[in-house]
């Protein structure tokens, strides 16, 4: 079976390909943007496309223009697979099969793609959170240093001041620390 994966995000496409490595026989081709000549030459049985790919509408257009395509492309998810279309779009993928393919094997392949898309989303969210946690820790350290210098207090007391400010304003210690640093900059004459 020939599978074409259209995904503008190469890292995510690699993750999907790795997930499908076990599936045999499968001829998988990845592309970040659709090329019609390539598509016609490769003759995929199944096309999986990321919902955030601008090529989705091009594929929908090809499905209409059957004269350009000897093998019509149809929407994979049909009435026999209730709920699968919704599941796929939630995961961020859409799938098209080329007429004549038995949908039986498609479901398992699509499920791998869906779970890999979700995994990528999770990895990206975790990474963003880790980066912001790190930035917040650095900010708190700098704000503590500033308080220790300006108020002539020890590290523990500086942190207690920040925590009290945070509690009084109902915000996080990181947010209060960031405010403190930026206000200090303004008072010192930095451009806001």
């Amino acid at each position, binding site marked *: 079976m020939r599978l074409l994966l259209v995904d503008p995000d190469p890292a995510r496409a690699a993750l999907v390909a790795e997930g499908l490595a076990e599936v045999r026989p499968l001829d998988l081709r990845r592309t970040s943007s659709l090329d019609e000549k390539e598509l016609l030459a490769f003759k995929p049985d199944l096309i999986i496309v990321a919902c955030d790919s601008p090529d*989705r509408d091009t594929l929908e257009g090809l499905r209409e223009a059957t004269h350009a395509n000897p093998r019509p492309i149809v929407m994979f998810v049909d009435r026999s697979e209730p709920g699968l279309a919704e599941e796929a779009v939630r995961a961020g993928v859409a799938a098209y099969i080329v007429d004549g393919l038995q949908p039986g094997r498609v479901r398992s392949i699509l499920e791998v793609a869906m779970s890999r898309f979700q995994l990528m989303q999770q990895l990206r969210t975790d990474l963003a959170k880790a980066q912001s946690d790190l930035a917040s820790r650095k900010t708190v350290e700098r704000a503590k240093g500033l308080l220790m210098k300006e108020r002539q207090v020890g590290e523990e007391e500086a942190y207690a001041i920040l925590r009290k400010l945070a509690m009084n304003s109902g915000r996080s210690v990181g947010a209060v620390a960031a405010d403190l640093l930026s206000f200090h900059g303004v008072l010192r004459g930095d451009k806001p």
Partner: protein
Amino acid sequence: MTLSLDLGFVALTDAAPLIVARARGLFAAEGLDVSLHREVSWATIRDKLAAGLFQGAHLLGPLAIAARLGAGSEPVGLIAPMSLNAHGAAIGVSAQLASQMEGTGPLGLARAAARRLGRGEAPIVFATVFPYSMHSYMLRYWVASAGLDPDRDIRIVTAPPTGIVERLSSGEIDGFCVGAPWGAMCEAQCGARIILEAAEFWPGGPDKVLGVSESWAAREQAAMQAMLRALLRASVWADAPENAGELASLLATPDYLSAPPGLIAKRLGEAENGLRFSRQGTSLPWRSHAAWIFSQMLRWGQADRDTAPALALDCYRPDLFRAAAADIGLALPLADSKAEGAHDGDWSLPGSPGPIAMSRDAFFDGAPFDPDSVRDYAAGFAITRLTR
């Protein structure tokens, strides 16, 4: 209580009512906490509406109807309780094709197409944004008026608006029909020549709608009305010529269109071919507009000839629009349908509290459309897939 809603849009000037309602706090004033999500594909907007990820979206009017008929996807219960705009779309050609055409009429294109095919070269390629769109129907109508069969004598491909600019630069396509501001972008970046504006093809004709899931609208009637009130107020603001500059700057920002404000401003305000959002009954989802769209689906073989017209027409829901418009005191046309293309000059539309002043609405070829004779109209064209 605040209700959270997710609405989708594509980066086009006619998404203005959604963007204005969000940015100017009109949703918030109705107790709605709206997140706007920019999408790059109409198919994804349709699918996210169907899956309930979006409660509403900026949508091609013809795509709302096609989804309902199950054309191009499994049937999706979508409705259009409001129209978002008229005008903005434009047909344009590359500088090279313009030089091969005599004049800017469809006959000039027909001769250029014939010469190319006669020399055994590849056919002229046009791009539109979606098979079910006013852009596609406008292009097909226009080329067919010169005896060109849009499926045989030229090629029509589908590409997203930003992709059209790229493909024109690379020479992959010779022409396009695309919404504002991307036609102006093709002019500015690739020297393309605009040869027919939607406002010249059919003044006041349909384009984008607010697409909503029918079951959501039935379940959340209060939220549906609140959303419509906010969008109708936003449309009135977006229509006012004095707000054109501010609107262009707002739309231009990276979160929305991410395009030069000067190009956006060209089709706003009182520009002759400019977009209409509210005036002249634009926000009403006219059943006669849905009927015309359905006639083109029949004409080009997208809808089965036995499809009951009511199935398509019921997608447009003027009743929902009327309730919201009356709430905020907008002038209301008395009817839900009108004779289309019947006026070659200014005319007066019966309305409440008084008549509404309208300008000409004649098609570029002068052929009128009677919404009660959809099949005869579709079968009456020289080039059509529908036989009587």
